[in-house]
């Protein structure tokens, strides 16, 4: 602790420009992790505002808050922002911050590549939002991209998308894609080559295992997206015909290329969420994780099967019966390893001394919400039912259940769980619980009720609708939920700020946890560990605290 206060006082005496310069030029994995996370929070606010605009427009039939053109831009920007500039940077930010600490390393394997990757991703976000100002080009053809987040051909062709909005979209994904691939290479190399003595693959914390598989998926999934973006640039700038149906090109192949990225991307985002749950649930249940080897196997299985389910996004396009059957079965198969994980988390809680602190609340809500999201996913995997429900609000409700109810809830849990480590301060439990309940109520108001207009036939991406189709009341409820979610987010931001400035000192290990990061000071020093740790089990701090009954006797 003494070294910690020393560095803090040193830091605060230096001029602001010097301190900012340090952040901009840093190659430290902890600072880059925090930069990723802060950057993601800014975009979370932007993407949230776009979602709010859409919901306000849909609050009643024949509403005229925004024009159809603006509505198209809002859903495109909302989707692109939330996936590429909120979820991905949050995932990478936490991986950056936690993986080296948890494996007892000094830093990532390639610190400068790490900084490069972050700034490439940041550039991507700037490209995307610069389109609001520069998308017009000389054409007077509108500002931000309006082709939807999966940008189906031929909407992206020069003929149908004059101006530069689609180009900014492509550039932004290409640039952030390069950053993502760089970080993924870094994460894999760090995990395989930088573990402290004794930490064999079978003794790594589950968070590290899940991030290893996540990084592997990024390499296999984001690269095809980058390739497809290069093809789109060739089409738009060099006059190529990849997706030009007039010259024999295929619009469907873009869909394949996009979803070969798009579906594994779901697992890229959800695996780190699983990783947070796998660390937090044991600590707040006071039990070791149930079935560690099975959890690892299930993760790897999700990684493999996740690469072969992409065309379930394309049932409505009309594929052959063979292709439909294959993708129905592979999609259903992926529910098996996912189900195994849910049972393992429940078994970890079973008989444990559970403490419902804020991180645990979010994790428990995640368990049930993710189960529901998985079940609606299985209904959508049934091709005939998909023909009925595809492209409706049922789909929108399903994937928001995954991304918000599953992934975002775990990310909030991770924020609260590791906030004391990163800031050295305890967060306010009262504000944390307020955030949880506001967001929980808002989430369920919005996304439970969103399934209904979908089943009643309301298509996604329409800017308004006729009254009297039975959709009105559901849309009103869905929009009311936004108020609670926004209030929850504000409480969350206030909690982070207030606790950072006024919070009580956290100490090294406020949760009585078992992984290595809790053995160093909070916040950790630049060098992480004064001496390289040695581990003999999956819970090195348990061994340290209970030398009479260490874990390595049983593993």
């Amino acid at each position, binding site marked *: 602790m003494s070294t910690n206060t020393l560095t803090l006082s040193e830091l605060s005496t230096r001029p602001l420009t010097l301190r900012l310069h340090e952040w901009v030029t840093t190659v430290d994995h902890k600072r880059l992790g925090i930069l990723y996370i802060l950057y993601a929070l800014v975009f979370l606010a932007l993407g949230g505002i776009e979602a709010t605009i859409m919901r306000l427009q849909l609050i009643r039939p024949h509403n005229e808050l925004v024009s159809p053109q603006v509505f198209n831009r809002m859903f495109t920007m909302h989707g692109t922002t939330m996936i590429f500039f909120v979820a991905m940077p949050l995932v990478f930010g936490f991986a950056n911050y936690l993986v080296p600490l948890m494996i*007892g390393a000094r830093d990532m*394997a*390639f610190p400068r590549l790490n900084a490069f990757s972050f700034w490439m991703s940041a550039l991507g976000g700037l490209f995307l939002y610069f389109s609001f100002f520069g998308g017009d080009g000389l054409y007077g053809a509108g500002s931000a991209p309006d082709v939807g987040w999966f940008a189906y051909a031929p909407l992206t062709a020069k003929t149908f998308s004059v101006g530069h909005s689609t180009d900014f979209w492509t550039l932004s994904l290409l640039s952030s894609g390069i950053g993502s*691939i760089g970080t*993924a*290479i*870094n994460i*894999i*190399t760090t995990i*395989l*080559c*930088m*573990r402290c*003595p*004794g930490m064999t693959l079978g003794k790594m914390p589950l968070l590290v295992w899940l991030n290893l598989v996540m990084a592997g998926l990024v*390499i*296999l*999934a*984001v*690269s*095809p997206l*980058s*390739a*497809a973006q*290069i*093809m789109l640039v*060739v*089409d738009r700038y*060099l*006059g*190529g*015909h*990849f997706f030009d149906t007039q*010259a*024999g*090109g*295929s619009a469907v*192949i873009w869909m394949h*290329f996009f979803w*070969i990225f798009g579906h594994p991307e779901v697992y890229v985002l959800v695996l780190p969420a699983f990783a947070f749950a796998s660390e937090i649930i044991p600590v707040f249940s006071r039990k070791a994780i149930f079935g560690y080897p099975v959890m690892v196997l299930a993760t790897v299985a999700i990684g493999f099967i996740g690469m072969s389910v992409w065309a379930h996004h394309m049932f409505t396009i009309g594929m052959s019966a063979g292709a439909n059957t294959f993708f129905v079965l592979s999609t259903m198969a992926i529910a098996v390893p996912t189900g195994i994980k849910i049972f393992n988390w429940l078994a970890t809680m079973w008989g444990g001394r559970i403490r419902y602190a804020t991180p645990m609340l979010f994790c428990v809500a995640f368990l049930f919400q993710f189960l529901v999201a998985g079940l609606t996913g299985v209904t959508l995997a049934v091709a005939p039912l998909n023909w009925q429900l595809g492209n409706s609000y049922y789909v929108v409700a399903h994937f928001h259940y995954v991304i918000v109810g599953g992934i975002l809830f775990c990310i909030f849990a991770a924020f609260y769980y590791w906030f004391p480590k990163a800031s050295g301060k305890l967060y306010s439990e009262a504000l944390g619980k307020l955030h949880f309940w506001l967001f929980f109520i808002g989430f369920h108001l919005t996304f439970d009720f969103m399934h209904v207009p979908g089943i009643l036939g309301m298509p996604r991406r329409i800017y308004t609708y006729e009254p009297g189709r039975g959709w009105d009341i559901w849309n009103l409820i869905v929009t009311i939920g936004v108020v609670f979610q926004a209030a929850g987010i504000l409480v969350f931001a206030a909690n982070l700020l207030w606790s950072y400035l006024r919070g009580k000192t956290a100490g*090294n*290990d406020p949760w009585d946890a078992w992984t*290595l990061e809790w*053995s*160093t000071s909070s916040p950790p020093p630049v060098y992480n*560990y*004064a*001496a390289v*740790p*040695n*581990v*003999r089990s999956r819970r*090195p701090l348990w*061994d*340290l605290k209970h030398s009479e009954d*260490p874990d390595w006797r049983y593993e």
Partner: protein
Amino acid sequence: MSAASVNLHENSLDWRLPSRGRVGMYCLIAAEVAIFTIFVVAYLFYLGKSTAGPQPKDVLHVPIFYTVCLLSSSLTIHIAVRKLIAGKMAASAALWLLTIVLGVVFLYGTAREWIHLINDEGLTITTNLFGTTYYSLVGLHAFHVTMGLLALIAVAVFYFAAWLRREHAERLEILSMYWHFVDAVWVVVFTVVYLIGF
């Protein structure tokens, strides 16, 4: 409580992990393989689907000589690194330069083929689907050869500035992994464009 007091593992002195450079390069190669796979799939998918303009068999000539050049450069770079490990700097530098020359000859071959296709056959990237997919796939490979050559040339400068020593051999080996990958991709591109596509 400090991590230093975590029990000392008896095997901590034998703790060996894979080389960072190698693992990093394997990951980069995996990402590149995924990118090339998409371009190869697009090429194969669009074979014979062009609505107008020349077809592959009308205009392409199999570049056997240039292929031999590129593939043999894999051998020369491998031996160059072996010579460096053996401490034979002059032989190593000579083979390194030969690798660069072979790479440049290959690029020259690609350039000649493109000039021929553009000027004599009137095939450009906008002509038809074959032009789009052919120039993209071969161009993507040529771009990777160019990147590799830039790295090889940087190392050649280190040779001549006498900055390069035996202990750098592993770094050159990692660079040569990339070069082998570029050659292996050419085997695939060659098969797809000049054998299957004919």
